[in-house]
């Protein structure tokens, strides 16, 4: 009992138990559905059925196994999502920098930044497709717009959050504008920048998949709608659902890992337990 309790104390174990709990609920649901439905795999298949389809060699469509289809299409989707994410990240950072450098640009851009947040860009996915006329480009554009806003808004908040003392110190040292930015402003904005990235990484992937569903030419979303129309095994659908969930979650954690690589000093401070105090100031 004591050992069990000690294991239960670690944070990872708690999450693991939760994940196991969800799996158990899923399986109970799957057994229930199996008893009541004619085509249970459409509603809720067993987890082992999905895993089985991942490892099966049976060709599903045009000589490819389910896994091959999912992997090749996931590659295409992810590549475009990553391209859009990258473009959005850089342009968001540059806009935040420009807004901080010039009051005029901030005054012009900030209200529109607020409005962009409220405009359902994902709802505009079809129209972006109509304008760009190319599914690949429109996926990149939408992923970029969705990335752009959280990054720009968070980074600007980061620039504004700098302590007065630091600013004064740089002034006393007669630092040039370049030095002020590279030595104090940009480093202090980096945590905010990463918060923006964490928000937008799953969104960029959602955008990329969603735009796929609108037109053919491969991609996870395209396969998703095809397997829903029963053009191939429904297991492809479940594989895509699981995979996109995993990719979404991983992309979030990946940003956290990159953040730690960039800012090892911040990690130490958090581990030292001082963060709580600082938040409460």
């Amino acid at each position: 009992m004591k050992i069990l309790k000690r294991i239960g104390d670690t944070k990872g174990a708690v999450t693991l138990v939760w994940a196991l709990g969800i799996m158990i609920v899923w399986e109970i649901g799957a057994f229930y559905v199996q008893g009541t439905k004619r085509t249970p795999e459409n509603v809720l298949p067993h987890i082992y059925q999905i895993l089985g389809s991942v490892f099966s060699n049976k060709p599903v469509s045009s000589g490819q196994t389910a896994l091959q289809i999912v992997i090749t299409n996931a590659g295409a989707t992810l590549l475009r999502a990553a391209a859009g994410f990258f473009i959005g990240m850089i342009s968001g950072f540059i806009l935040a920098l420009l807004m901080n450098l010039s009051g005029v640009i901030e005054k012009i851009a900030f209200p529109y930044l607020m409005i962009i947040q409220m405009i359902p860009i994902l709802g505009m996915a079809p129209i972006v497709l109509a304008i760009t006329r190319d599914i690949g480009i429109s996926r990149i554009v939408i992923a970029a717009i969705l990335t752009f806003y959280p990054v720009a808004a968070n980074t600007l908040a980061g620039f504004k959050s700098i302590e007065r003392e630091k600013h004064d110190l740089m002034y006393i040292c007669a630092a040039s504008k370049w030095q002020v930015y590279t030595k104090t402003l940009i480093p202090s904005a980096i945590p905010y920048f990463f918060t923006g990235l964490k928000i937008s990484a799953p969104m960029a992937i959602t955008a990329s998949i969603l735009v796929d569903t609108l037109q053919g030419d491969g991609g996870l979303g395209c396969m998703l709608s095809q397997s829903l129309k029963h053009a191939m095994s429904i297991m492809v659908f479940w594989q895509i659902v699981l995979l996109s969930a995993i990719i979404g979650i991983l992309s979030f954690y990946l940003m956290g890992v990159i953040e730690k690589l960039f800012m090892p000093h911040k990690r130490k401070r958090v581990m030292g337990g001082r963060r709580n105090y600082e938040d409460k100031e």
Partner: protein
Amino acid sequence: MKTKNKKAALTSFVYPLSFGGLIFALWQTGVLHKLLGTDEFTLPLPSRIGNIILDNLPKIAGNIQSTLIVAVLGLLAGSLLGYAVAILATIFPRWGGGGLNVVSAFNAVPIVALAPVITNWTKDVSKDASVRSMVAKILVVMVICTAAMSINAYRGLTEVKPFSEDLMKTYAADKLTTFVKLRLPNSIPYIFIALRVSVPACVISALVSEYFAEYITGVGRQIRENIVLAQYSTAWAYITVACLIGILMYMILMVFEGILLKHRRK
């Protein structure tokens, strides 16, 4: 000093307005089309979009209604559920914290994966296709809003000032009193942080879940259907409406926040 403030306030109005006016002028005169390399067929002039909205007002109003019902009910249900989850996590910190990790993982699940699954699950809810796709859409919006609310509300309920917690202890306040008098008020600003995220998110997920619903209704679905039929100007009319819904809901939230939090600051 006063004139300087006035000037600053004036410029913060004039600059964005003139920028918006510039874009509008470029759009209406067709310069924007040349810049983007499109034509008036895919990107209709603003005046034409306005006319279409006015001409089809009753039909658009019906679609707005069905989208708004989904978004608002999903937002309410999701936020209440999220807050309940946060309260549970506060009462049972060890297991609740881990549970919140799981909830935040749900937040990263793409809506496009969630919507068709939930559509399948709700097939038995009602024989009426319009009712069951409404339920499915509300559930999708609910899942999205639950995550945002529970994570933020948990922070609000747990990250109280240490000295106020100590003060409650010195008064020998029981857990319930601490909760009602200290944690609950402390969480209110965090509720608004969550709502700032979930209000735009609820509109987006309502639009996207309409793409996958059985019953063809709602602003999002109309955007898609009209694009498929290559009726781009009608689609633009619905996009304009979707933007207005998003902006209006956000403004309502801002007004509420202003009223509630202003009272608190005093």
